[in-house]
């Protein structure tokens, strides 16, 4: 028996938490045990303890090569994800003029999918869905504002839903929309093909309206609330992205209070997802890795404020809150759900991408759909798909590898000029904080006050 190479030891006030990044196990240990694990001196432990350690993967049998286990999990995840995921951009155009929108700065053409591209894309997707032999299909409609091009949006959602049904494939459709056009006839038409909707709120009415406004300057808050009322009557999962600007939680609190007053805190189909809005220049990773890390740290600490805010106002549907420190989803041998097989991101030009935030930036495209749905793939497709962090020296022995997967391939390309390099990002810096923050929320008695609530900045 030997210690796992994927143990991370996190000190608390009087003991340690061992976090195994390969299995996701968390175990409290004392100093003596930590030392035994770190020095790999496990022979003297009694059998019950040994059994407990191996059950959680914190120790493993001598003949197990955990690198091979990781390699297996990684390759399996890249090449055989359980479902096919399609992300389409029917248009880059939008009926709003939000000043922070990343798509606005990119001088992206406001183009919409032509009939020909729409036809080619549908043919391409139908072929791929059959060839993939997946048992489930996820269709995400994104933009621009997809409802500016209702015909394409309906073709993707309703058309692929019908196609999936005909072939015995389970179907899920999602719509990312600004919420202002999702009503009336369109709502009736599209709802049967939508399992989830993503809508963003930038704060209470006045703040939101100063940020998310129509091109004539009128705010969108009231219209979005109308859409939310419609959604509240359905079983469509409604994910509300709540942006926090400049770490100002007071505005977040007034927004939540308004949502509660409107009865949305009781809607079991509503989810809250909080996001910190990042300044434009911070996107330039080459210059600002430090700030990138700082932002991630702020996001973790924000979980504490969000939690106490919701608690103080008796928010009913607490199950639907997603905290940025939730480590339960971290067990991902591949860092990004998009850089896998059976993933297709198609923009309004019929270009294929592997990263939704790079859609429209031609240097990041990996292929193009042509006539009759025939795709041409280019080199970058193979660069990204064959990327394996075990080829990078710094990843091979890194205890964080199973929760990092070598980091974002696109960030790696931006920072180092090549997809086939690692990008550590903030994983090493913030994993411990996330674990402690998570444990404090769910197991406060075990943390025994050891972990201090972070002071508000």
């Amino acid at each position, binding site marked *: 028996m030997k210690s796992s190479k994927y143990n991370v030891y996190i000190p608390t006030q009087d003991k340690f938490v061992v976090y195994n990044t390969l299995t996701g196990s968390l175990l409290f240990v004392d100093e003596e045990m930590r030392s035994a694990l770190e020095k790999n001196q496990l022979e003297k432990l009694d059998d019950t303890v040994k059994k407990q350690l191996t059950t959680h993967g914190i120790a493993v*049998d001598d003949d197990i*090569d955990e690198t091979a286990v990781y390699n*297996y999990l990684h*390759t399996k995840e890249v*090449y*055989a994800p359980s479902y096919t995921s399609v992300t389409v951009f029917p248009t880059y155009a939008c009926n709003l003029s939000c000043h922070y929108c990343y798509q606005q700065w990119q001088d992206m053409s406001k183009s919409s999918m032509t009939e020909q591209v729409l036809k080619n894309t549908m043919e391409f997707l139908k072929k791929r869905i059959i060839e993939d032999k997946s*048992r489930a299909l996820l269709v995400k409609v994104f933009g621009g504002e997809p409802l500016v091009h209702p015909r394409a949006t309906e073709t993707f959602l309703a058309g692929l839903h019908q196609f999936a049904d005909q072939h015995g494939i389970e179907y899920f459709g999602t719509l990312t929309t600004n919420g202002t056009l999702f009503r009336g006839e369109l709502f009736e038409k599209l709802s049967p093909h939508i399992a989830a909707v993503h809508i963003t709120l930038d704060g209470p009415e006045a703040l939101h309206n100063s940020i998310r406004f129509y091109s004539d300057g009128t705010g969108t808050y009231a219209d979005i609330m109308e859409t939310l009322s419609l959604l509240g009557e359905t079983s469509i999962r409604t994910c509300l992205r709540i942006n926090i600007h400049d770490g100002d939680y007071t505005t977040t609190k007034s927004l939540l209070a308004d949502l509660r007053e409107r009865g949305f805190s009781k809607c079991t189909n509503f989810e809250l997802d909080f996001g910190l809005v990042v300044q434009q220049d911070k996107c330039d990773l080459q210059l600002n890795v430090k700030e990138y890390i700082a932002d991630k740290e702020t996001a973790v600490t924000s979980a504490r404020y969000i939690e106490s805010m919701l608690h103080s106002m008796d928010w009913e549907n607490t199950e639907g809150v997603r905290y940025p420190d939730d480590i339960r989803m971290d067990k991902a041998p591949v860092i990004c759900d998009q850089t896998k097989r059976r993933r297709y991101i198609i923009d309004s030009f019929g270009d294929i991408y592997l990263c939704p935030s790079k859609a429209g930036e031609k240097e990041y495209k990996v292929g193009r759909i042509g006539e009759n749905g025939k795709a041409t793939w280019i080199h970058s497709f193979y660069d990204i798909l064959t990327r394996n962090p075990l080829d990078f020296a710094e990843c091979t022995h890194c205890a964080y590898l199973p929760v990092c997967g070598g980091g974002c391939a696109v960030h790696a390309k931006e920072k180092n000029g090549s997809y086939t390099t690692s990008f550590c990002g903030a994983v090493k810096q913030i994993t411990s904080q996330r674990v402690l923050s998570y444990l404090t929320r769910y197991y406060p008695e075990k943390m025994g006050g050891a972990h201090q609530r972070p002071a508000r900045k």
Partner: protein
Amino acid sequence: MADFELKELLENNKFDDLTEEHLDVLKTMKILVDDGLDEKKVLSFRYCKEKYSSPYSIFVIFPTLACNLACKYCYERTSELSARTMDEKTVVNTISFIKKMAAEDNTRTILIKLYGGEPLLNVAACTRICEEVSSWAQQLGMQVAVVLQTNGTLLTEDVLDALAPYLTYVELTVDGPQKNHDTIRIYKDGSGTYQDIMSAMERVTKRGIHTALRINIRNEDDLRDVLTDLTERGFREKRGVTFYYAQTSSFGLCELFSNNKLCHDDEERALEMSPAVREVIKELKWMEHLEMPDILQKQKFVACNNEKKARYVIDPYGDIYLCFFRAGQKEYRAGTLTEGEGQFGSMYYEMLARNPLQFEECRTCVYLPLCGGGCAMRAYEQSGTFHTNSCGSMKDFAEKRILMYLKRKYPDRFEKVI
């Protein structure tokens, strides 16, 4: 087909003198590729795709290692395996394991191969596994195909009554014409089994179940005799009867993994024999029943179908293997069934994480896309690790195979080539 001049140009990477038209043809056939394309990455992608995203899961089940025959060449006999039969608890664990892995693999089709030993010595296990997996899969919209590989001597009407609803096809074997067969495939008392196998085949085809007959031969005359007899028995006119042939090997299982020379000789003999054998099949009008990989189809990205994800071999002890030749030999097991699930060990991960693009010899080898690094088990046997190549006879025969294929397909152009 290229002339010497073109070959020189290709080998020396000089294309300035070629016309656009020539370049287009070469590019379309991927004989020339764009400068920026790293073909190793393309290969790595295809290798991993084939290895990890199989659309179906295969479960090779050994309901027993025991057999009612005493065939002289049987590898299971020479390796002195016990006659262990799967007990009820292991049957239950096997069923849970199939369900669990099929769900995890997101498979659309479950293929169950009943293997052994003689699987029909444990009909209860066969029936229960088929029945429970089928009804579970049906609810989830998965398809189930069951292949029974049997010596045929126990395939009675009663057995067929129980199993027929699940069987996709039955695989039987004859060891050449009756006079040879009855000296090789024999009951323990020494008597021959040929007639019993033929009667079984009759019963199976009568129920509309597909039969695949493996015919072991020493030469084309053996095949002529067997096919003639099958024609007389009326099988040529029956639908759902297919056959393939294999030459009788002159060595046992341990040599299969360790003795490259014997394997090479065997393969050479098979290749030499193949044109004459095909003539016999044509002459006797059995061509449309022949179902075996053609001469070029032997070549694949991943060396062995059982080296892939979603392949499981389960023996009567409840141990999991990847190579079915190794079932029952604990030192090769890849995991063990425990209640409700399977626990995989190091061998499983080592085998699945094997990638020939990491082997120095393979990275630069022009044959890699045909060979996939060779048999993992042979590599292990010969070098003590899965993470190495095992070239086998691929390099020796790849060219010959292509020429033989071309000669058959385009006889006018290749008559003199070989």
